[in-house]
Protein backbone atom coordinates (compact mmCIF):
# COMPACT_ATOMS: atom_id res chain seq x y z
CA UNK A 1 0.00 0.00 0.00
CA UNK A 2 1.28 3.40 -0.93
CA UNK A 3 2.06 6.42 1.14
CA UNK A 4 -1.00 8.51 1.90
CA UNK A 5 -2.03 11.71 0.16
CA UNK A 6 -3.41 13.04 3.41
CA UNK A 7 -0.52 15.55 3.65
CA UNK A 8 -2.23 17.84 1.14
CA UNK A 9 -5.27 18.30 3.29
CA UNK A 10 -3.39 18.09 6.56
CA UNK A 11 -1.09 20.91 5.51
CA UNK A 12 -4.15 23.11 4.89
CA UNK A 13 -5.68 21.98 8.17
CA UNK A 14 -2.54 22.85 10.12
CA UNK A 15 -2.09 26.21 8.39
CA UNK A 16 -5.75 27.02 8.95
CA UNK A 17 -5.56 25.99 12.57
CA UNK A 18 -2.56 28.21 13.16
CA UNK A 19 -4.01 31.26 11.39
CA UNK A 20 -7.41 30.94 13.07
CA UNK A 21 -5.74 30.44 16.45
CA UNK A 22 -3.99 33.79 16.09
CA UNK A 23 -6.65 35.77 14.27
CA UNK A 24 -10.12 34.37 14.99
CA UNK A 25 -10.72 35.69 18.52
CA UNK A 26 -9.90 39.29 17.59
CA UNK A 27 -11.85 39.03 14.34
CA UNK A 28 -14.90 37.62 16.08
CA UNK A 29 -14.63 40.38 18.65
CA UNK A 30 -14.53 42.90 15.84
CA UNK A 31 -17.87 41.80 14.42
CA UNK A 32 -19.29 41.26 17.88
CA UNK A 33 -18.71 44.87 18.98
CA UNK A 34 -21.66 46.44 17.09
CA UNK A 35 -23.97 44.38 19.29
CA UNK A 36 -22.32 46.04 22.28
CA UNK A 37 -22.81 49.49 20.83
CA UNK A 38 -19.29 49.95 19.46
CA UNK A 39 -18.93 50.53 15.73
CA UNK A 40 -15.39 49.87 14.47
CA UNK A 41 -14.33 52.15 11.63
CA UNK A 42 -13.41 49.25 9.40
CA UNK A 43 -17.03 48.14 9.34
CA UNK A 44 -17.98 51.34 7.58
CA UNK A 45 -19.01 50.69 3.96
CA UNK A 46 -16.43 52.87 2.25
CA UNK A 47 -13.52 51.79 4.43
CA UNK A 48 -14.30 48.08 4.18
CA UNK A 49 -14.90 48.23 0.44
CA UNK A 50 -11.62 49.94 -0.20
CA UNK A 51 -9.82 47.50 2.12
CA UNK A 52 -11.32 44.42 0.48
CA UNK A 53 -10.97 45.90 -2.97
CA UNK A 54 -7.27 46.55 -2.51
CA UNK A 55 -5.20 43.60 -3.68
CA UNK A 56 -3.48 43.08 -0.32
CA UNK A 57 -6.58 43.56 1.79
CA UNK A 58 -8.55 41.26 -0.46
CA UNK A 59 -5.81 38.67 -0.26
CA UNK A 60 -5.89 38.84 3.54
CA UNK A 61 -9.68 38.44 3.60
CA UNK A 62 -9.47 35.57 1.15
CA UNK A 63 -6.65 33.91 3.10
CA UNK A 64 -8.57 33.95 6.36
CA UNK A 65 -11.77 32.59 4.80
CA UNK A 66 -9.93 30.00 2.69
CA UNK A 67 -7.85 28.61 5.56
CA UNK A 68 -10.77 28.66 8.01
CA UNK A 69 -12.95 26.70 5.58
CA UNK A 70 -10.37 23.97 4.93
CA UNK A 71 -9.33 23.72 8.58
CA UNK A 72 -12.96 23.34 9.63
CA UNK A 73 -13.73 20.90 6.80
CA UNK A 74 -10.92 18.49 7.66
CA UNK A 75 -11.50 18.67 11.39
CA UNK A 76 -15.21 18.09 10.84
CA UNK A 77 -14.41 14.98 8.84
CA UNK A 78 -12.33 13.62 11.75
CA UNK A 79 -14.96 14.70 14.29
CA UNK A 80 -17.78 12.93 12.48
CA UNK A 81 -15.65 9.79 12.40
CA UNK A 82 -15.09 10.17 16.16
CA UNK A 83 -18.83 10.55 16.66
CA UNK A 84 -19.30 7.17 15.00
CA UNK A 85 -20.17 8.15 11.44
CA UNK A 86 -18.36 5.58 9.34
CA UNK A 87 -19.03 6.73 5.77
CA UNK A 88 -15.63 8.42 5.50
CA UNK A 89 -15.53 8.69 1.71
CA UNK A 90 -18.97 10.30 1.66
CA UNK A 91 -18.14 12.65 4.53
CA UNK A 92 -14.78 13.64 3.06
CA UNK A 93 -16.32 14.37 -0.32
CA UNK A 94 -19.09 16.44 1.26
CA UNK A 95 -16.86 18.57 3.50
CA UNK A 96 -14.13 19.17 0.95
CA UNK A 97 -16.69 19.99 -1.72
CA UNK A 98 -18.27 22.50 0.63
CA UNK A 99 -14.88 24.05 1.41
CA UNK A 100 -14.09 24.21 -2.32
CA UNK A 101 -17.44 25.85 -3.04
CA UNK A 102 -16.80 28.41 -0.31
CA UNK A 103 -13.35 29.08 -1.72
CA UNK A 104 -14.65 29.69 -5.24
CA UNK A 105 -17.47 31.87 -3.89
CA UNK A 106 -15.01 33.97 -1.88
CA UNK A 107 -12.88 34.58 -4.97
CA UNK A 108 -15.96 35.48 -6.99
CA UNK A 109 -17.24 37.93 -4.36
CA UNK A 110 -13.87 39.58 -3.88
CA UNK A 111 -13.44 40.07 -7.61
CA UNK A 112 -16.82 41.82 -7.68
CA UNK A 113 -15.70 44.30 -5.03
Amino acid sequence: MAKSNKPIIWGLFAAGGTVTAFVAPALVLLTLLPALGVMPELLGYDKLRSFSGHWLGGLVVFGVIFLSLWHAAHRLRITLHDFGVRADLLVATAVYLAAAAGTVYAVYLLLRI
Partner: protein
Amino acid sequence: MEDQMSSKPYIREVPRYSWFLRQPRYMRYMLREVTCIFIGAYAVFLLVALRRLSEGREAWESFVQMLTGPASLVFHLIVLAFALYHTTSWFNVTPKAMPIQAGEDFVPGAVIVGAHYAVWLAVSVVLLFLAGVF
Protein backbone atom coordinates in the same frame (compact mmCIF):
# COMPACT_ATOMS: atom_id res chain seq x y z
CA MET B 1 -0.24 -26.92 21.87
CA GLU B 2 -3.31 -27.37 19.70
CA ASP B 3 -5.61 -27.16 22.75
CA GLN B 4 -4.15 -23.81 23.71
CA MET B 5 -4.60 -22.53 20.17
CA SER B 6 -8.25 -23.53 20.00
CA SER B 7 -9.31 -21.52 23.08
CA LYS B 8 -10.88 -18.31 21.92
CA PRO B 9 -9.59 -14.86 22.93
CA TYR B 10 -12.37 -12.48 23.93
CA ILE B 11 -12.66 -9.22 22.04
CA ARG B 12 -14.14 -6.24 23.92
CA GLU B 13 -15.95 -3.95 21.51
CA VAL B 14 -15.37 -0.22 21.80
CA PRO B 15 -18.75 1.58 21.91
CA ARG B 16 -18.76 3.45 18.66
CA TYR B 17 -20.97 6.39 19.63
CA SER B 18 -20.19 6.83 23.32
CA TRP B 19 -16.51 5.97 23.79
CA PHE B 20 -15.64 9.60 24.54
CA LEU B 21 -18.03 9.76 27.48
CA ARG B 22 -15.85 7.31 29.38
CA GLN B 23 -13.04 9.66 30.35
CA PRO B 24 -12.73 13.42 30.97
CA ARG B 25 -9.69 13.61 28.68
CA TYR B 26 -11.78 12.24 25.80
CA MET B 27 -14.50 14.83 26.50
CA ARG B 28 -11.94 17.63 26.42
CA TYR B 29 -10.66 16.26 23.11
CA MET B 30 -14.15 16.22 21.59
CA LEU B 31 -14.75 19.76 22.85
CA ARG B 32 -11.59 20.84 21.08
CA GLU B 33 -12.65 19.06 17.91
CA VAL B 34 -16.12 20.58 17.75
CA THR B 35 -14.59 24.08 17.77
CA CYS B 36 -14.29 23.45 14.02
CA ILE B 37 -18.09 23.72 13.68
CA PHE B 38 -17.96 27.26 14.96
CA ILE B 39 -14.83 28.23 13.05
CA GLY B 40 -16.60 26.94 9.95
CA ALA B 41 -19.78 28.81 10.86
CA TYR B 42 -17.82 32.02 11.23
CA ALA B 43 -16.17 31.48 7.84
CA VAL B 44 -19.66 31.19 6.34
CA PHE B 45 -20.63 34.34 8.23
CA LEU B 46 -17.67 36.13 6.61
CA LEU B 47 -18.85 34.93 3.20
CA VAL B 48 -22.30 36.34 3.89
CA ALA B 49 -20.71 39.62 4.95
CA LEU B 50 -18.63 39.70 1.76
CA ARG B 51 -21.72 39.09 -0.30
CA ARG B 52 -23.59 41.95 1.35
CA LEU B 53 -20.55 44.15 0.87
CA SER B 54 -20.47 43.34 -2.82
CA GLU B 55 -24.16 44.11 -3.24
CA GLY B 56 -23.77 47.78 -2.43
CA ARG B 57 -24.19 50.33 0.33
CA GLU B 58 -27.78 49.57 1.28
CA ALA B 59 -27.21 45.84 1.53
CA TRP B 60 -24.12 46.39 3.68
CA GLU B 61 -25.83 48.93 5.98
CA SER B 62 -28.66 46.53 6.68
CA PHE B 63 -26.13 43.78 7.39
CA VAL B 64 -24.37 45.99 9.90
CA GLN B 65 -27.75 46.80 11.37
CA MET B 66 -28.29 43.07 11.87
CA LEU B 67 -24.93 42.92 13.69
CA THR B 68 -26.28 45.21 16.40
CA GLY B 69 -29.10 42.82 17.25
CA PRO B 70 -29.37 40.19 20.03
CA ALA B 71 -29.19 37.20 17.66
CA SER B 72 -25.82 38.41 16.40
CA LEU B 73 -24.63 38.93 19.98
CA VAL B 74 -25.52 35.38 20.98
CA PHE B 75 -23.96 33.94 17.82
CA HIS B 76 -20.74 35.88 18.34
CA LEU B 77 -20.46 35.03 22.03
CA ILE B 78 -20.75 31.31 21.29
CA VAL B 79 -18.29 31.51 18.40
CA LEU B 80 -15.89 33.58 20.53
CA ALA B 81 -15.93 31.00 23.33
CA PHE B 82 -15.10 28.17 20.94
CA ALA B 83 -12.53 30.29 19.08
CA LEU B 84 -10.74 30.98 22.37
CA TYR B 85 -10.78 27.29 23.26
CA HIS B 86 -9.34 26.52 19.85
CA THR B 87 -6.60 29.10 20.36
CA THR B 88 -5.59 27.85 23.80
CA SER B 89 -5.71 24.17 22.88
CA TRP B 90 -3.72 24.83 19.69
CA PHE B 91 -1.02 26.87 21.44
CA ASN B 92 -0.66 24.42 24.30
CA VAL B 93 0.28 21.52 22.06
CA THR B 94 2.62 23.42 19.73
CA PRO B 95 5.83 22.64 21.70
CA LYS B 96 5.10 18.93 21.31
CA ALA B 97 4.60 19.17 17.57
CA MET B 98 7.51 21.51 16.93
CA PRO B 99 10.26 21.06 19.51
CA ILE B 100 13.10 23.55 19.13
CA GLN B 101 16.57 22.35 19.99
CA ALA B 102 18.89 25.18 20.94
CA GLY B 103 22.38 23.76 21.31
CA GLU B 104 22.02 20.61 23.33
CA ASP B 105 18.78 21.26 25.13
CA PHE B 106 15.26 21.89 24.00
CA VAL B 107 13.58 25.24 24.47
CA PRO B 108 11.16 24.76 27.40
CA GLY B 109 7.58 24.23 26.30
CA ALA B 110 6.40 27.07 28.50
CA VAL B 111 8.61 29.51 26.59
CA ILE B 112 7.19 28.42 23.22
CA VAL B 113 3.63 28.61 24.48
CA GLY B 114 4.29 31.96 26.14
CA ALA B 115 5.71 33.35 22.92
CA HIS B 116 2.56 32.26 21.08
CA TYR B 117 0.31 34.02 23.55
CA ALA B 118 2.46 37.13 23.36
CA VAL B 119 2.27 37.19 19.56
CA TRP B 120 -1.46 36.47 19.72
CA LEU B 121 -2.00 39.42 22.04
CA ALA B 122 0.08 41.68 19.82
CA VAL B 123 -1.68 40.57 16.63
CA SER B 124 -5.09 41.02 18.26
CA VAL B 125 -4.31 44.51 19.53
CA VAL B 126 -2.88 45.57 16.16
CA LEU B 127 -5.86 44.12 14.31
CA LEU B 128 -8.37 45.89 16.52
CA PHE B 129 -6.38 49.13 16.39
CA LEU B 130 -6.17 49.08 12.60
CA ALA B 131 -9.89 48.37 12.46
CA GLY B 132 -10.47 51.58 14.37
CA VAL B 133 -11.83 50.07 17.57
CA PHE B 134 -9.54 52.33 19.61
